């Protein structure tokens, strides 16, 4: 099992990047009272056919196309279902993909959340040509980081410029 929820996020985001997404939205909601954690990642990448989507979710589901699939998606599904939550994957060819998972927050086997700030920073800095939108809601308080908004301020200064990296680190520290 993957030892951090953040690793799952990186995994799913890596898939979106491979699928040539230009926009990736990440929604994380955590509610201590409801004992609930959810995560939804939506991209506008090349998407998957219905058959492919089935195969990706269940690597033992066999189709004749024979494309080899990996473990990123089934691992996340496994963690969600094992930890009392739900999972779904919706995808449309040339439209994009949406992957949702939820978890019971105090489930004994729930992996640690991991370093969300670092995960966001690394994703944004290392993919300057992709736009990310993070919605992070903790007990009803919402924080949004939208790289489109940031880039609009930056003009020709790249988002992975050291001064901007420094800004982003402080900004995330102050808000998360």
């Amino acid at each position: 099992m993957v030892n951090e929820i953040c690793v799952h996020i990186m995994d799913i985001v890596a898939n979106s990047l491979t699928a040539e997404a230009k926009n990736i939205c990440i929604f994380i909601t955590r509610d201590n009272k409801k004992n609930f954690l959810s995560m939804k990642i939506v991209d506008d990448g090349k998407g998957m056919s219905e058959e492919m989507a089935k195969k990706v979710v269940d690597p033992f589901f066999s189709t004749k196309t024979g494309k080899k699939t990996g473990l990123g998606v089934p691992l996340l599904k496994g963690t969600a279902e094992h930890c009392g939550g739900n999972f779904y994957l919706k995808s449309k060819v040339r439209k994009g993909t949406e992957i949702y998972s939820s978890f019971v927050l105090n489930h004994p086997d729930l992996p640690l959340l991991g370093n969300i700030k670092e995960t966001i920073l690394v994703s944004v800095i290392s993919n300057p040509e992709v736009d990310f939108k993070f919605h992070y809601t903790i007990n009803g308080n919402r924080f949004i980081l939208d790289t489109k908004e940031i880039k609009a301020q930056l003009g020709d200064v790249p988002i992975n410029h050291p001064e901007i990296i420094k800004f982003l680190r402080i900004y995330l520290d102050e808000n998360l």
Partner: protein
Amino acid sequence: MAKLTIEDLRKIKEKVHAETSLRDGAWRVKVTVHMGTCGIVSGAREVMSALIQEIEEAGVTDVMVTTSGCMGLCSREPLVTVEAMEQEPIKYEYMNANKMRQVFKRHILQGEVQTPFVLAKGAEIIK
């Protein structure tokens, strides 16, 4: 001190413009961290974090970081490729945060290839 806001970026932008107006602004070195699932699980994120921290600390503005997917060399991950201008790309294997810091300080800043970690030069695998 007041919290930073998105609007503060405009001031930072002006500062960056003022400081870089004399340079050509081109990237001198491109560093790629390979992040397939195997790469992430084996610590590619820590490698990327270390690299970003080094860049921040050194304040260099001509090093670009990017990521790419798995290269099919999972057993040697995390892998990092360093491409300096007018030099053949160097691929490092089995990277971790400390090795990344060393490669940053010695190779990226000073131009000394860190031979013990090298998997390949150019297209050629040397081990």
